[in-house]
């Protein structure tokens, strides 16, 4: 048996039946990381000692005949923008290169209380800003399926780790597609929950009205198990919602699936379009009613997102001042410490976003940019509200293209942003969405994006599971 090929339920059953121990399982993943990570650059740090001691603790519980929870002893990877107490948390930035997390993020406390084994922290675009993983200050993660291509971003390491069997599952975060895009590029399942479903406490903030933590895994069921564990109200995050997820038995048969016509226009790779349309046909074959719908304001989503997210980022990243924590470049006066610490600490894309955000919020431009974007955001939300009056779920692509070549778009930021064109609207509207691998172009995976209404993860996941069996 290859221990790195199991799903969460299979691993859990094996542990309970003592077919293998959690230490065996953990060592199998650590070995896989050792063998493959030099080339892939998936992990920024490996927490071998704490992983093994957690695994031993779970094994002890099993040997004493005690009950263990479903995630106990199961090895996972954590995006390096989520705090794990006592471990480095760099956000893939030079400015946080030596930062040690002083506390656990709520999602980490929840995983730890279930006995999860944390293997290490995964690579990402610096401060989660990017769609390819190439903005990491510590080098891009390579796509395990084609090492000349990107893994997708910003949760590049988390998706690649699952695809390369370097972790059984991983946590990522999604501000404008950062879970779904790398999941699509690496051929794994990635869930971006409803805004408020999962606490953001302990996630390094990027765009606070958009950020959500979510799971990346091999199967829909695995995503569901992790989501159930990490979701719920948290007093430390005022935007978290009182929500307890329950699995429902919902079938495609009789459901109404909306297909937004604006997602199938110029710019989409014809092969991607073909694969997505085939998946939609399969849903129809299973008894779903396919309805073409229109989201008229969706054409403004990308512009709207690239004003709002950088505006929030410019405010959130103001805290990196060289005084409280992180890189500090010594200088004679306080202003120079600010200027030099930020100037030396941040990479090119982060600087670009801080500049765009500062510009959009500054006197004289605020109304034309930030306020206008907020208004467009509301129009986009209204489009989705109207759509969900008519349909249960929406089906569309995650990305107009499969994984691009490393370096292909790095010199042209706008062309990089265009990879997010199908994902950002979901964050603007606060909706849940999942990326499900439904086909391949050569050996490059293509993800179907299933979008649900607010807090209807149950419906979305049930349908994703049914689709998973058909493709």
């Amino acid at each position, binding site marked *: 048996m290859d221990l790195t090929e199991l799903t969460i339920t299979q691993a859990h059953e094996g542990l309970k039946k003592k077919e293998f121990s959690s230490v065996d399982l953990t060592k199998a993943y650590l070995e896989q990381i050792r063998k493959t990570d030099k080339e892939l650059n998936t992990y920024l740090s490996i927490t071998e000692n704490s992983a093994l001691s957690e695994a031993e603790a779970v094994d002890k519980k099993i040997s004493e005949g005690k009950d263990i929870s479903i995630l106990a002893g199961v090895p996972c990877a954590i995006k390096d923008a989520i705090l794990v107490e006592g471990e480095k948390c760099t956000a893939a930035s030079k400015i946080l290169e030596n*930062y*040690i997390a*002083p*506390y656990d993020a709520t999602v980490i406390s929840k995983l730890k209380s279930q006995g999860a084994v944390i293997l290490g922290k995964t690579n990402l675009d610096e401060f989660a800003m990017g769609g390819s993983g190439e903005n990491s200050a510590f080098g891009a993660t390579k796509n395990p399926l084609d090492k000349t291509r990107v893994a997708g971003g910003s949760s590049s390491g988390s998706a690649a780790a699952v695809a390369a069997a370097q972790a059984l599952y991983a946590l990522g975060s999604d501000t404008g597609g950062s879970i779904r895009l790398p999941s699509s590029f690496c051929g794994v399942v990635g869930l971006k929950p409803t805004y408020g479903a999962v606490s953001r406490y302990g996630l390094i903030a990027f765009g606070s*009205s958009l950020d959500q933590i979510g799971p990346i895994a091999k199967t829909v069921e695995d995503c569901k198990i992790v989501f159930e564990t990490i979701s719920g109200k948290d*007093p430390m995050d*005022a*935007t978290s919602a009182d929500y307890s997820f329950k699995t429902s038995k919902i079938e495609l048969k009789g459901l109404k699936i909306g297909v937004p016509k604006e997602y199938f226009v110029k710019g989409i790779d014809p092969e991607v379009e073909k694969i997505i349309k085939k998946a939609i046909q399969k849903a129809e074959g299973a008894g779903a009613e396919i309805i073409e719908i229109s989201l008229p*304001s969706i*054409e*403004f989503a*990308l*512009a*709207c997102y*690239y*004003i709002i997210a950088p505006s929030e980022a*410019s405010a959130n990243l103001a805290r990196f*001042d*060289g*005084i*409280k*924590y*992180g*890189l*500090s470049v010594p*200088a*004679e*006066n*306080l*202003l120079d*410490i*600010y*200027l*030099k610490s*930020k*100037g*030396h600490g*941040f990479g*090119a894309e982060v*600087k*670009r976003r*801080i*500049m*765009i955000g*500062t*510009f959009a919020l*500054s006197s004289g431009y605020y109304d034309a*940019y930030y306020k*206008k*974007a*907020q*208004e*467009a*955001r*509301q*129009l986009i*939300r209204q489009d989705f509200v109207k759509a969900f009056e008519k349909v249960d779920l929406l089906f569309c692509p995650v990305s107009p293209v499969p994984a691009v070549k490393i370096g292909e778009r790095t010199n042209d*930021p*706008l062309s990089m*942003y265009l990879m997010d064109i199908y994902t950002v609207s979901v964050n603007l509207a606060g909706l849940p969405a999942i990326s499900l691998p439904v086909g391949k172009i050569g050996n490059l995976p293509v993800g179907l994006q299933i979008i649900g209404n607010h807090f209807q993860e149950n419906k979305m996941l049930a349908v994703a599971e049914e689709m998973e069996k058909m493709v």
Partner: protein
Amino acid sequence: MILKDEVKRIAKLARLELTEKEIEKMQKDMSAILDYFNLLKKAPKLEGVLASSKEGLKMSRKDEVKSRDVNMSKRLIALTPDKKDDYIKVRPPLNLL
């Protein structure tokens, strides 16, 4: 095209030191991105008021003191780049001399 002086002004507002080369690249990149934002001019006018301004009120909580792990303050101070005992050192914000 955004002017070079405007890029410099925004960088100063953002407390961001940019090299001459970075300013030139930033001018080019920001111009392309801001041009793309012109698309928003086509967006219809919003009917009614912006919802986001009201939402924050629902999320307020009681202002009360809660006990915290005593070691937390030690861990936080340990992360500061420049300190003396338990105090964080900061350069004077104004150059009075």
